[in-house]
């Protein structure tokens, strides 16, 4: 559990994060998450201690993932279908094709930084989103669609979570 001292420090680091340019709403959300989660507090400490700006960006992406995970958390144990390892390559390929198509729409609308500004999703999180084969979250797709004015048919994908 996060101690009171850690809870206070979380707000201090999140304030620093906002001064560094991350959206204020994100900084507030991660400070609040750190009140409930020692792991999130650890990530804030690691952001502050990051040896490079790339490490800072990765830490922001991790924090965004935890926020999304908490948002998507089921009220109990929820079982999704099993996926055999033999299918992972095909799934990864399909996910990356979908993301490449969506990325072209993003670029046509001003690029990642413009999408970050419009959606409130930190730029490092968007970069990770487009560069990894993890299945996109419905919530993230909706935020992107809203920011770019896309309709539902343009964000349909076989693999999402």
């Amino acid at each position, binding site marked *: 559990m996060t101690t009171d001292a850690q809870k206070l420090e979380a707000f201090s680091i999140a304030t620093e994060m906002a001064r560094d340019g991350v959206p204020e709403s994100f900084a507030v959300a991660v400070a609040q998450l750190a009140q409930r989660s020692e792991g*999130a507090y*650890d990530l804030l400490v690691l952001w502050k201690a990051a040896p490079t700006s790339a490490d800072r960006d990765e830490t922001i992406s991790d924090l965004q993932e935890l926020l999304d995970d908490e948002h998507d958390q089921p009220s109990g144990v929820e079982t999704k279908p099993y996926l055999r390892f033999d299918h992972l390559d095909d799934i990864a390929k399909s996910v990356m094709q979908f993301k490449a198509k969506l990325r072209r729409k993003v670029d046509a609308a001003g690029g990642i930084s413009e999408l970050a500004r419009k959606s409130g999703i930190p730029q490092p999180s968007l970069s990770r989103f487009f560069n990894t084969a993890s299945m996109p979250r419905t919530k993230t797709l909706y935020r992107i669609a809203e920011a770019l004015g896309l309709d539902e048919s343009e964000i349909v994908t076989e693999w999402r979570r």
Partner: protein
Amino acid sequence: MGLTVVITEWGLQSYLALRASNTFTRDDYKDIIRPDVEKLKTYDPLDAVFQNSRFWGPAEDYAGKRIADGHKMKWHNIGPRTVQLVLNGEAYLCQAYSKTSKHLEDREAAKFKTYIQWIRNGNYHRRGVIP
């Protein structure tokens, strides 16, 4: 004291990302990773396999503090190491990653700490068990 090996949603997504980046080959998976993970089904902490600190060890946070019930399974000749929670007769595969820096490993540990909290609370997605 064998364990039921549970695949969490976090574990599946991290495997997906590692496969897409070719961090390990299909043969690595079939010949090394999968058989090693399956050793958890007959888990005995006193078994020589689990006494080998190069293969199996406690998960620690950035400050070197042990994460309760958390363990790492490591492969030094191929990319990934997995992090799993061993709890009440079940092993939850939570993450797989390739250690490219201490900062990355510390961040993975921080996420793992949060996943453990949610698993303990009974609020998580699972993708079945390894048969």
